């Protein structure tokens, strides 16, 4: 797992990062960098985009063409970047509130187009930066700063949402099973088309503190216990499946990519007509 090259891809002078001690975001970020390093991608040809929130700070630490956009709408910027300059590898990190609440519309439409962008969701089930309000992935009954009596909002399953919306690569990983996460992210970034990776991660400060997992490892243990491999998940009874999240790659399909399709079907036709 240790990869001495990762610092080549980072703006080390920007460290230490702003994330709290025990936060899982650093684990995911390092995993993304290892995946990029393993793929030997050219730094100049990577556009690394984020929205607002704790995950939004990721691009600042990475030595690419980096863009920290608005809350929930980073995928729209990425779409413009990919359309206008297809040679760029576009990687977009989002938070759970970012991708699924305020940016839900942009997220499903990016999936639908199957545009060649990798969307990595740092899913810690909470709005961390704004002070621990519940998000669309906060588990039932959990305490958040806006659910003082326990969360009664049903939550989104990112994998099901992205699959239904048309993403051609859909996977789930987590901040505990890091070796697997490295592999998933590498495949996701290498995939041509819209790839979604839901990464379950921790927020001991805002989620853990209010839900008896104040210690970082307690929160990480919770993630570890929540996750099972897709194979194992399929053998489990409905009862056993409650509260569990299968991890692995759910969809990996070769499908027409949006910009290529636009070029083939629209540009070529229009030039013929000129």
């Amino acid at each position, binding site marked *: 797992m240790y990869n001495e090259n990762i610092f080549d891809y980072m703006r080390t002078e*920007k460290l230490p990062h702003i994330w709290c001690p025990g936060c899982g975001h650093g684990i995911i970020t390092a995993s993304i960098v290892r995946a990029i390093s393993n793929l030997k991608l050219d*730094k*100049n*040809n990577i*556009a690394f*985009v984020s929205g607002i929130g704790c995950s939004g700070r990721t*691009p*600042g630490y990475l*030595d*690419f*063409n*980096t*863009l*920290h*956009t*608005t809350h929930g*709408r980073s995928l*729209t*910027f*990425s*779409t*413009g*970047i990919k*359309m*206008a*300059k297809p*040679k*760029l590898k576009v990687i977009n990190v989002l938070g759970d509130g970012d991708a699924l609440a305020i940016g839900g*519309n*942009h997220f*499903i*439409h990016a999936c639908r187009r199957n545009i060649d962008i990798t969307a990595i969701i740092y899913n810690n089930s909470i709005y961390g930066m704004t002070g621990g309000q519940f998000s669309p992935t906060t588990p039932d009954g959990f305490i958040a700063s806006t659910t003082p009596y326990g969360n009664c909002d049903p939550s989104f399953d990112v994998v099901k949402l992205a699959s239904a919306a048309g993403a051609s690569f859909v996977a789930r990983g987590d901040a505990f099973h890091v070796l697997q996460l490295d592999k998933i992210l590498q495949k996701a970034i290498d995939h041509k088309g819209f790839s979604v990776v839901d990464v379950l991660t921790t927020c001991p400060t805002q989620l853990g503190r209010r839900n008896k997992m104040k210690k970082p490892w307690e929160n990480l243990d919770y993630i570890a216990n929540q996750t099972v491999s897709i194979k194992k998940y399929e053998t489990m009874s409905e009862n056993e499946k409650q509260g569990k999240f299968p991890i692995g790659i759910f969809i990996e399909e070769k499908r027409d990519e949006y910009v290529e399709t*636009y070029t083939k079907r*629209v*540009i070529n*036709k*229009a*030039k013929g*007509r*000129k």
Partner: protein
Amino acid sequence: MSKLELLSGNEAIAKGAIVAGCNFYSGYPITPSSEIAEEMARLLPMNGGKFIQMEDEIAGMGAAIGASLTGAKALTATSGPGFSLKQEHIGFAIMTEIPVVIINVMRGGPSTGMPTYPAQSDVMQAKWGTHGDHSIIVLCPSSVVESFEYTIKAFNLAEQYRTPVIVLIDEVIAHMSEKVEIFSNSHYRIKNRIKPSVRPEKYNPYNVAFGSVPPLAPYGEGYRFHITGLTHDETGFPSMKARIVQDLQERLIEKIESKLKYFSFYEKYMTDDAEIIIIAYGSVARSAMKAVKDARKVGIKAGLYNPITLWPFNNKRMRRFAKKCKHFLVPEMNMGQMCHEVRSSLYGKNVNVYHLNKANGELISPSEILTKLKGVMHV
């Protein structure tokens, strides 16, 4: 060589954009601006560009900014309610200094208002729609020919000043057809953003060492840098230091306002000896022109000032008018948005500023302006 074409305002805007070098359009359908999107969908792919219809107005604005960051010249078009939605990203483009052109075909409001009727309801929204302090360039054409010309200018200004530029257009101009003489591309002066002259490792996206508009490198050409909507220092990374933030705020305003003389476009007619100057823009400027001609026939010394560059509003020019002229009339298809600005520009001057407002979907006719002129000048 030139070619005469019969075009609607919306078609002329699309043609102007192509001439200006626009190679990216992202937007969302909305009446009465949709023909711009339709024309761009047809024209861009045959002219080396790309068109994308996004999932909403905010996305249309976001994709345009993303495309511009890669070096593209990006356009989006909308109308009142969509313009409200776009404001979040207009603010982002102002803060991050990314060139982009926004066309707003104005319709009646608030809310859904009157989608197919003309209005000039977004004069103030264009200036102050997004949160935070800033300056912005807003142009307002009065004819189809001007729609074509000022779209080209809007792209040039966006590139030159690294800023979003807004073109406000009346619904009636957008949908009516007039003759436009279109020359070959070499006839038009097209400006492109300044690219950095330093090596990538020396590049800072907000380096103002050589002027208040820093060079902008496109993504993917070896210059790796950071862009954020947070307040930032010259390196592009977030900074909340009071001095740096104050400098940034002041520069965002200064880089535009201090250069106003280079792009303060206007039309003046018989203002030199005028006893009353009509300040009118968009379609109302046309009616006002006729009203001035008619007024002169009945002995009213009227003049017309059409501030085509609506924002920044040229206060100096107004105060020069006020040296000789003591009466001003501001007819507009809203409840007095520009009149408010005219009054504040003439603050402390011993002048009368009259207003003529209509916000019911009807145009302001020359005779209505003439009647008002006669009333206030006691003729």
